[in-house]
């Protein structure tokens, strides 16, 4: 079924349009043409040779040579255009890398200059100016986060990210994130709670064994996912509230749940939440800091590791985001 579904889902024209290629430069279209030429030629040859030209093998041979030639030309076109696509992808990657790295120096210099002024190290500043400089500082921090996230996305898309695979104890990562974000939560009037659940299914395992929450992954990646979820929970609480991090073990999976009583995700936005650069309509106004890349990055990493990510939410009441990750040696 899934193969049939895949075939019916192929829309060559849309694919070529989205890659901004003309039809004759688009490998998927050329493949179809190649297949069609092949099939038509075979049927034609069969029809010709089985009827009136059946006694003249040189005609069949001529047709075969002709068809081979056409297929060869289409083949060359395909390879050439594949190479162009690969080259364009390499250039895009290089471009992103250069832009992001080059951007970081001037951003750092603006950021540090603002630090000097806001820290009153260059003399007194009046309150109005200070207020505007604080806004500038927030924008600068956002720009830094954006450049960092773009670089992360690039590394992930190139498969360069997460090459430091080792055994990671999720319990330790959760503890670290909890400690790191405690003061950030307090500054936002949010109470941060941490609980570890031992439910019925997990009682079969020795919860204190070293392997209870150990997975194979890049520790930085795991930290990034959990941190993203917890930071989102804290950021999207309007005045004050509570974010609860829970760690469960369900069969051979570790489950991390982050529950908040924040603004929630509007129903219309739910299906787009894991898309690159998407930010829900109700958070754009209250929280300007997000980049719209955190959940996109999290989803790629979780799925690469064989886990799942999802959420339930009620607008105005809060959200529950969860991640499952397969445990080794269970």
């Amino acid at each position, binding site marked *: 079924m899934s193969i049939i579904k895949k075939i019916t889902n192929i829309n060559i024209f849309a694919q070529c349009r989205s890659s901004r290629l003309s039809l004759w430069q688009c490998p998927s279209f050329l493949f179809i043409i190649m297949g069609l030429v092949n099939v038509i030629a075979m049927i034609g040859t069969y029809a010709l040779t089985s009827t009136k030209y059946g006694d003249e093998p040189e005609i069949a041979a001529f047709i075969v040579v002709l068809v081979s030639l056409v297929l060869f030309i289409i083949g060359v076109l395909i390879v050439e255009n594949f190479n162009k696509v690969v080259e364009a992808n390499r250039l895009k990657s290089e471009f992103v890398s250069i832009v992001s790295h080059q951007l970081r120096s001037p951003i750092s210099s603006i950021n540090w200059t603002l630090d000097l002024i806001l820290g009153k190290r260059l003399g007194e500043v009046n309150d109005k100016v200070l207020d505007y400089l604080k806004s500038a500082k927030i924008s600068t921090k956002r720009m830094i986060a954006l450049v*960092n996230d773009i670089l992360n996305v690039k590394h992930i898309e190139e498969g360069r990210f997460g090459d430091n695979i080792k055994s990671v104890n999720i319990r330790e990562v959760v503890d670290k994130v909890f400690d790191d974000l405690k003061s950030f939560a307090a500054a936002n009037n949010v109470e941060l709670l941490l609980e570890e659940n031992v439910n019925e299914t997990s009682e079969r395992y020795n919860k204190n064994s070293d392997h209870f929450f150990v997975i194979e992954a890049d520790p930085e990646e795991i930290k990034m996912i959990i941190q993203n979820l917890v930071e989102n929970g804290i950021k999207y609480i309007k005045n004050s509230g509570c974010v609860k991090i829970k760690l469960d073990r369900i069969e051979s999976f570790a489950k991390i749940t982050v529950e908040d009583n924040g603004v929630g995700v509007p129903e219309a936005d739910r299906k787009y939440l894991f898309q690159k650069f998407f930010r829900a309509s109700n958070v754009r106004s209250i929280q300007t800091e997000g980049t719209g890349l955190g959940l996109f990055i999290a989803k790629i990493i979780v799925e690469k590791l064989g886990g799942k990510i999802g959420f339930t939410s009620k607008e105005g009441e809060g959200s529950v985001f969860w991640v499952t990750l397969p445990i080794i040696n269970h």
Partner: protein
Amino acid sequence: MSKTILLVEDEPALQKVAGEILRQEGFIVKSAIDGEEAIRIIKTDKPDLVLLDLILPKKDGFEVLKEMKADTQTKDIPVIILTNLEGTQDIERALELGAMNYLVKANYELEDIVKRIKDVLK
């Protein structure tokens, strides 16, 4: 006596800002804008600490680090890397070459950097 810090940084705006805060904190600040100048100053002035960028003209930060660690006169001077390169390989390479600390410019506030410098010089 005031301690001397060599600031190796090719971006003038960053030189200016970092130099200002370090002078305010009572350090004597020397500057180098490329790798060769950095090595010359390290050899002649023997600063108490080197703040080293990695992407530099003429000789990059890794080269500077390698050369100063190979010289018995300068090998004990602590080096803090302050750069915008952040690949795991770059970090590992710099630490293996003997850097004491590795800070990514964009991710640190100026005051944090000063604090780390003071910790090293304590």
